[in-house]
């Protein structure tokens, strides 16, 4: 792979409802801010990828809402319908194919839709949809499968929520910075057994943008580039009953390929910080197992041992993660932005010391069916 880097990033503050912003307003703001971050103008950009989903936007051809706002007016442009990490992957491929710089923008307004209805639409229309299954109830099935398989306690996964909401206090973009305890999580309202309110992400509005560039443009940017070392994605079976929900095989495959590209043999030793997409608390340890930071079943122990906390061997989600703000699709791009800021040393109060190599992760589909893994580094 030729050298390519993330040279500019921007996020809005994530909020429950951004009443004064339409999609185009959100995207315009982050497009401008990402260009400013990179020290580039829109004329330096020759390719645009927007990220959106017609279901969540309540609009057919949802990319149409942000064409002007993303600066795509007379440029080669396309729309990825999926998580922001996948949109960024397309942006990277365009740069590797010869474009100088691609801007990738994602937008989402959870306040304008109904997630039970739109995520019910993920499920098979003949066999499953009429059961009323949606993102939350399917996650609960997965949580039960995972907790039961390895004897993980609800208190163990509650610690993830405590950690991530605590980390969010240092992230000015986070929606829910909170000082909470395991007891608070345990006594919060039951949403779907075993998930309680504080095990679940909030509904969020927001947008994010990144600029991916080749060496030529990266050299003239004012920011330190976050070099792309490895990236891969993989999708597993569709029907939940065909899958082992406690064993994220697609994530493991994507991680192995991303590590191979990046020359990483021992992820726990060679990666300094990870930003993983965890809209539900149990997902963080489960994904860490898929990412092979530990053996299957050991993910639940990582936080108890202090490994994934700030100051631990592998701080996970210093930003507060999706539990602290989950603008769907944008949330994966936010993980990549946070990983980039960490290796740049620009993460402010949430900066992990000596973060040389960072991992970012996002997924599509029910219970993490299709995962994308990124490795970025401050060193070329």
């Amino acid at each position, binding site marked *: *792979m*030729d050298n390519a880097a993330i040279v500019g990033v921007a996020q809005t503050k994530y909020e429950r409802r951004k009443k004064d912003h339409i999609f*185009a307003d959100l995207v315009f703001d982050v497009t401008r801010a990402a260009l400013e971050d990179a020290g580039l103008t829109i004329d330096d950009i020759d390719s645009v990828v927007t990220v959106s*989903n*017609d*279901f969540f936007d*309540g*609009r*057919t*051809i949802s*990319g*149409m*809402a*942000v*064409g*002007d*706002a993303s600066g*795509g*007016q*007379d*440029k*080669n*442009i*396309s*729309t*990825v*319908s*999926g998580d922001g990490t*996948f949109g960024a*992957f*397309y942006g*990277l*491929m*365009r740069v*590797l*194919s*010869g474009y100088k710089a691609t801007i990738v923008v994602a937008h989402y307004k959870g306040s304008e839709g109904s997630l039970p209805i*739109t*995520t019910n*639409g*993920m499920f*098979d*229309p*003949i066999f499953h949809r009429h059961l009323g299954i949606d993102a939350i109830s399917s996650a609960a099935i997965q949580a039960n499968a995972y907790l039961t398989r390895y004897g993980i306690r609800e208190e163990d996964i509650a610690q993830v929520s405590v950690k991530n909401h605590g980390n969010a206090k240092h992230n000015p973009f986070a929606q829910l910075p909170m000082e909470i305890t395991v007891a608070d999580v345990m006594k919060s309202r039951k949403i779907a057994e075993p998930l309680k309110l504080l095990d679940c992400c909030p509904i969020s509005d927001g947008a994010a943008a990144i600029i991916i560039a080749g060496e030529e443009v990266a050299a003239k940017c004012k920011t330190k580039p976050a070099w792309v070392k490895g990236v*891969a*994605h*993989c*999708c*597993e*079976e*569709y029907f939940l009953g065909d899958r082992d929900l406690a064993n994220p*095989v*697609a994530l493991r*495959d*994507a991680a192995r390929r991303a590590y191979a590209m990046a020359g990483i043999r021992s992820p726990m030793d060679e990666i300094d910080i990870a930003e993983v997409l965890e809209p539900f608390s149990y997902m963080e340890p489960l994904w860490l197992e898929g990412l092979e930071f530990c053996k299957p079943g050991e993910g639940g122990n990582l936080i108890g041992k202090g490994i994934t906390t700030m100051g631990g061997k592998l701080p996970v989600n210093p930003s507060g993660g999706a539990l602290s703000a989950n603008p769907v699709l944008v949330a994966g791009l936010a993980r990549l932005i946070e990983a980039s800021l960490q290796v740049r040393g620009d993460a402010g109060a949430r900066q992990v010391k000596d973060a040389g190599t960072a991992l970012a992760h996002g997924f*599509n*589909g*029910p219970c993490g*069916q*299709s995962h994308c893994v990124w490795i970025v580094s401050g060193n070329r």
Partner: protein
Amino acid sequence: MARRVAIVGTGQTYHKSHRPDVTSREMIHEAVTAALADADLTIRDIDAIVIGNMDHFESINYVDAYSVEGSGGVMKPIMKVSTGGTTGATVAIAAYYHVASGLFERVLAIGFEKNSESDTTGAIITCSDPVWDRFSYSGAIPSLATEATAYMEKYGATQEDAALIGERDRNHAMNNPYAHLRRPLSVADIMNSPMLAYPIKLGDICPRSDGACACILAADGIAQKIAKRPAWFRAAAVRHTYTWFGDSTDYNQGLVSMQRASKDAYAQAGITKPVDEIDVAELYLPYTWAGLKWIEDIGFCGPGEAARFVSDRNTHMGGKIPINPSGGVISTNCIGATALLRVAEAAIQVMGKGGKRQVPDVKNALATGFGGCFWSDVVILSSEKP
């Protein structure tokens, strides 16, 4: 520098108004199986998949995840791109970048739509901005009807001039075993068909079809081993010039997105005289007037000259630059697959696999996509590696 990329296999379903015998996933499987057979590959040879459709037509969220049993995407990288009517060409172009980037060797591009499961116009209405555009430009036909009226006013073109495009494409469809509407239509038939929105009559507009299309793309060095005559990408260009339908109504300018995308594509391919250098074109013409106005924007003839250019039979089979030997969109329109069918049919022409619809000695073939807010995609394929 981008790696060279070629299409090495194509597959499509037989297109119909209604396929109650299959789910959309099974329909995708038909196209994928046909494409793999065409390239003499198995799904194990495929490194990555790009898929696209329009969410609201089948009402499936995350189609990339839903479709894996049909697409063959289990334990493979799969990505969804979606840009309205241009989706199919967008899918082909995304697959092109997958290979050109050097990250993947053999990539499957899939477009599909099961219009019979949708309220097509009901879904399309929601593409317009909910505050400004939705009440004036709802659905696909009204904006096209105003475009047609403006074109007739400016250049004195007649409804019969447009109807000739329909007659041409519907006659061409007789040579394509996969086409949905395989019944010839004359200018008189079209003139006598029911008026939908002046000046567009039933015979002027595309049908709604069920169908799927798949193409296999491969990298330089591998493509030559898979196909005897690979169809090499010489250009891929996209312009989403408009965000608001209101901005697209300066009809004196022509279809600006097509002008810009084709200019970009010709520059990439080093083409200066399109009519002389391109041997066949598969254009996304969703209604007959597009076959007049847009061939001016793409540079096949000058502004206002299209009616004459077409009536002189330059674009019929055997003409200077045959357009839509497959029968085009007027004969088959499974929306998410429609623009990929244009790319696939262009590849078929380059690969010499067109059967009764084959244009002799094709070196360069051009395909377009049209959709969204008057957006244009242009792909140029060639028998010669660039």
